[in-house]
Every structure is written in structure tokens, then in C-alpha cells.
């Protein structure tokens, strides 16, 4: 259900406050405001491409990451996507484990965007890896190994 303009102002107000506070503390918010605002109201599984197909550059990337994965792109991911077209970005994202794990269905999209083999395999593996017992064990591992595991299933 798309939010109305008055409601969007609430989200935008909070976003701007956060951005300003970070700036005052010498930090940057690596997220485009238009991209964020367009991610508001995204459904957990069936995501319509129409909701963000008109966005460009940073706004498109921030929005796609937030819509699909509820996170911001890492520096290396931004770098990787900098030279890609929208279609290529969507294909790149659909090949991530998280896309399969979340069972995302991109609708209203003319591009062929489906999880690749890597994404599918990691998606299946994540079912095993996400068991609370295994996660508890993983949390006792050194930080470096934990980060590696997180990165694999990101």
C-alpha cells in the first residue's frame, strides 16, 4: 500500500534528522534519501519493479538493496555496481544468497531476473546454517571467521 505524501514526510523527517546527526558526528549516511523513501512500504516477498524503476544511480542502488535485503550496499558492492546497468544490477543482486533465502519475487519487470546457481545453492545451505544451534556455535568463533560466514550468506 503506497504511503501518502503526509506520511512520507514523517519518514523523510526522521531520515534527515539521522543524516544531520551523523554529519555532526563526522559520519556519512551511505544512503540516498529518494532511494530510502521509495523503499517505504515494500512487501517482504513480492516486490514490484514499478516501485523503483524510475530511480537512477545512487537512489536506484540504495532502494534496491533496502527493498531486497533491508540493508545498505557495502563499499565493494557500490563499486561493483557503479558501472552496471539497472538490468545488470538486478541480476547481480538476484544472485546473492539473501535473494534466495528471502524467496524474493520481482514482479512487473521485463528483465529476466532469477537467482543463479550460486544464489540457489547458498539459499538452500542457509536453511541448515540458520539453525539456532549452529548460529550459537558460530557466534563462539573468532570475529574474522564470523564475518566470512556472514559475508557468504549476505
Amino acid at each position, binding site marked *: 500500500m503506497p504511503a501518502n505524501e503526509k506520511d512520507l514526510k514523517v519518514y523523510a523527517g526522521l531520515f534527515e534528522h539521522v543524516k544531520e546527526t551523523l554529519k555532526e558526528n563526522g559520519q556519512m549516511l551511505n544512503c540516498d534519501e529518494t532511494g530510502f523513501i521509495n523503499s517505504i512500504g515494500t512487501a517482504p516477498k513480492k516486490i514490484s519493479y514499478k516501485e523503483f524503476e524510475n530511480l537512477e544511480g545512487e537512489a536506484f542502488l540504495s532502494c534496491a538493496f533496502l527493498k531486497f535485503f533491508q540493508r545498505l550496499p557495502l563499499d565493494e558492492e557500490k563499486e561493483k555496481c557503479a558501472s552496471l546497468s539497472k538490468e545488470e544490477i538486478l541480476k547481480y543482486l538476484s544472485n546473492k544468497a539473501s535473494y534466495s533465502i528471502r524467496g524474493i519475487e520481482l514482479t512487473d519487470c521485463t528483465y529476466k531476473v532469477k537467482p543463479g546457481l550460486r544464489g540457489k545453492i547458498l539459499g538452500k545451505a542457509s536453511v541448515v546454517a540458520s539453525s539456532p544451534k549452529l548460529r*550459537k556455535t558460530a557466534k563462539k568463533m573468532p570475529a574474522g571467521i564470523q564475518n566470512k560466514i556472514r559475508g557468504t550468506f549476505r
Partner: protein
Amino acid sequence: MRKVYLDVSMVMIGTSFTGIPRTLMEIVKRLEQKGNLKLVFIEYDSKRDAYRLLRTKEFIDFCDTKTDNRKSIRSDRFITFNEIEENSIFFDCDTAWKNRTRRSFLYPLLKQNKVKIVTLIYDIISIDYPQFCDKSDVMNFVDYLGAALIYANKIIVTSGDTKDAIESQCSSIGTEIPEISIVPLGGDFKKKENAEENVQSSIKEIVSKGKYLLMVGTIEPRKNHKLLLETYQKFLRDKINFVFAGFSGQAMEDFFAKLTADPDYQNGIWHVDNASDDDVDYLYKNCYAMVFPSYIEGYGLPIIEAFLREIPVIASDTGINREIAGERAVFFEQDNSEELAGIINNLLENEEEYKALRERVKGYVPKTWDDTAIAIEKQLLSVL
């Protein structure tokens, strides 16, 4: 009986049951026991794109025993978002901003279907202190808080400090202030028998090394562990030991590098990772004082935990720490290691002052979880 839906998706995949999961568990098991509301526990399932209904009795058992029976909790019945019944209550008290079902998506649907929404907001640190938080979490929190401000019939907070922060935020962004009620959290956690027998020998060894100051909480930037390390290194080396008890959080590489490079590391200053409840209890009971230098807290449960064991608290002078500790604690200016060292030196040198501080914390009676559950139930029923 009125139905109350609780999305406990995050608890259902959690690995530790402290903080918010523990709070949720303490509240729901009492609400269920009282029997005035029909609790319906649900978990989002991405394959079905629907909520899985959880078995109430099994979920309550899990809350009570923490024994991992999660497979038996899950039923094979599902409801869609639109099947959450009209005139029921949707009570959000889990870490809902991490949930796949974004509240900016769910709340408008619920509102449209005439479901009453009550959101328990523990704090808005992500909004007012985003510099201490993961930026993706911050974005998710903006989504969650925005939806709560727009759509919730009632917001429950656990402190006056959080209520003030939300109201101030509403004023600055020019939106209507929602109805907000304060329900303080309980502090009467169940005590285990023979807890001391389960304490690790390494913990007992630390305690045996002499007087120590304790800090409890995840090692993360907003807790300001670095101030204690600096205080120790500059002013208190050879005067008193320091123990940091808590999981290693993110963005603390510099702190750990300084800590582990200290010549007194593991022999005067320790980090106890993965401590059990019994270990932490033992550390509390035997410490000289609990030091709490955080920049910001949602509630400051360690202050209550220290008071319950009649342990003196030395805390940073913040609104929430003052609200929780009142006159019982000693406060120091945020980030002022010299003032903190002065307080500790003074206590070490003046036995009478230390005794007087210990007297101040005697007879502390926390709010009980029963009080919390009664107040929550009242707030839930008030939206009907």
C-alpha cells in the same frame, strides 16, 4: 476473549535471550497466565509469504525454560496478513525493525483492516544516536519508528526519557504526537539455586585477584568501554582491577587492540566474553562497584541488576541513568575520565564514604515483572 497477535519472528530465530527477547518472554508468559487475553503467536514464513501460527503452550514453555523446542512450537497452519482479525490487537514487542515484514508495509494493512496496533518502543537510540549504530539497522529503525508514529493506536515506552525523546522527535519533524504510555520494566529475575556451583573456575580466579570494578554489557561504542580503559591506564593502574563482562560487538577493533596490548591484560584487566548468567551473577556479587559510563541506554538494566545485589553504581550523568538509578548512584560527567578516577580514588581512600554508598543501595526493591505485565495488559485493553 480479545485476541492479541504477537509477531515473535525474531525470538524464533534468536540465539540469546537477554535484552528485548528476555523482556518479551517475561511479559508474555505473565499475560498468558492471567488469561484475560487470547495470545496468538505468529512467525513470518518467507516461503508462504504468510504468518505461521505458533503453538501457544509450547511457546510459553520456551519462554519459561529457554529450552530450545522451536520445532515443536511451529504449527503447520498459516494466516495471511489480511487474516489478522478485525478488532483484535497487534502487539509489537519484539525487535520488529529487524523483521522481514517491514512495519511500513504491515501497519497500513492492519489499520485498513481495523486491527488495533500497540507498539512497545524500548528506545530510539538509532534515531538520536545513529553514530553508535549500524547504518542499515538505522534505516530499518527509521522505517519502523515512522510506521509506529503514523499508524500505532498506542505507543508504550519503558522510560520517561524515551517518551521525551519521541515527543521531541515528533515536534521537530512536525508530526502529531501519538498517545504514549510509560510502563517500566521489571527487575525481579528468577534466581537459580546453587548458581555458584556453576561458575567457571576462570571467573572465580579473576575474583580472587582482588578488588575490581565491573562493567556489564555488550562491548559496543555507545557503552563507552574505552573511557574505563583510559581511566584504568591513566589513573587507576595498580589501585583496582577492571572486568568487562559482555559479548564482543561490532566496530570495537580499536578498543580490543588497546585492551589486549595492555601489559595488565588478563592480570588486572579482563574481558569476559560468553559469560553465563551464573558467571555474571557471581561477578556482580563480588565486585567493588559497577561502573556504567554509557553515552546512552534504552533502560540501563545493569544498574538495576547491581542494585538488586546491593552493589554501588558509578554512572555517567545521562537522563536515563538518572531516571533509573535516582539518588542511589554516584554520577560523573560523560567522558570525563579524571572525574571518574577521582570518585573511585576517593572511595578507595575513604572507607566510610564507600560504606555510605553501600548503605544507599540497601533495601532496593525493583519493579516486578508482574507489575509490568499488569500495566501492559491495561494499555492493550485501553485501545479497544
